[in-house]
């Protein structure tokens, strides 16, 4: 029982670590794609870790199975969402300007 709780705590800490650095990256990067990248990828990992921790702490098999379903659906929906946002940046006027700026500077930071 206690081992399960320690493992869940580790998973919560890992999730918080990635969440915080994803947020830092969101403000630190300069072009929209990199910002989206940091935000969505680290956010996905953070929520994934939290759900793994919840899976470890699940009181019964039925609720554990539901958390697992949520986890799988989250793995499908999160990258789809970020790729839709990315596609709209790619097609918008603003991004064209950003892209040429990216080419000029060669570095995003």
């Amino acid at each position, binding site marked *: 029982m206690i081992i399960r709780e320690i493992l869940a705590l580790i998973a919560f800490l890992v999730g918080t670590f990635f969440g915080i*650095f994803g947020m830092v990256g969101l403000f630190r990067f300069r072009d929209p794609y990199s910002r989206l990248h940091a935000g969505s990828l680290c956010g996905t990992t953070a929520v994934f870790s939290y759900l793994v921790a919840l899976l470890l702490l699940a009181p019964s098999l039925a609720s554990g199975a539901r958390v697992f379903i949520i986890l799988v659906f989250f793995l499908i929906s999160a990258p789809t969402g970020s790729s839709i946002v*990315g596609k709209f940046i790619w097609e918008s006027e603003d991004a064209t300007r950003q892209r040429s700026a990216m080419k000029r500077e060669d570095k995003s930071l």
Partner: protein
Amino acid sequence: MNSRRVWAILRFVLTTLFLYFVWVLFTSDLGLFSLLFGLAASVMTAALTYHIFLPEHEANLRFFTPHFWALIRFLFLMVFSLYQSSFQVVKAVISGNTNPRIVHFRTRLRSDLARTVLANAITFTPGTMTLDLNDDHLTVHWLLCSTTHTKAAGEAIKTKLEHALGRTWL
């Protein structure tokens, strides 16, 4: 009965089975009323939506029925690469060394489902994010870019995933 009709019935049955499976999983209630109600609801929903859920041009069962062990293996690969890629992004956030580029390449996977899953999985591989999927043409934003050559970029990003996916779906 022509083959088109057989295929439509097969798709209808598969959609019903899938919906019923999810219903039982979510309710986790094996009472008679719940089972019958779920079955009726699945049949009705499947009758309305089977041509959207499984489009007619997906003319092979292997296009959407996964190989079980390959799927499990692919899921573990995804989770591993999710953590690995997040770690690389965190490193890039701290050091500030990024080289963002947009690369294009093609995939050789044939079914819509496998291509969609590949596009989603590319988001999880280190430093890449799918922007667009158009038939077999992928537009990918690569945060830690090392090459913009189409073939080399494709090799670097998708080879491992495509192998694992090619075993799961066609």
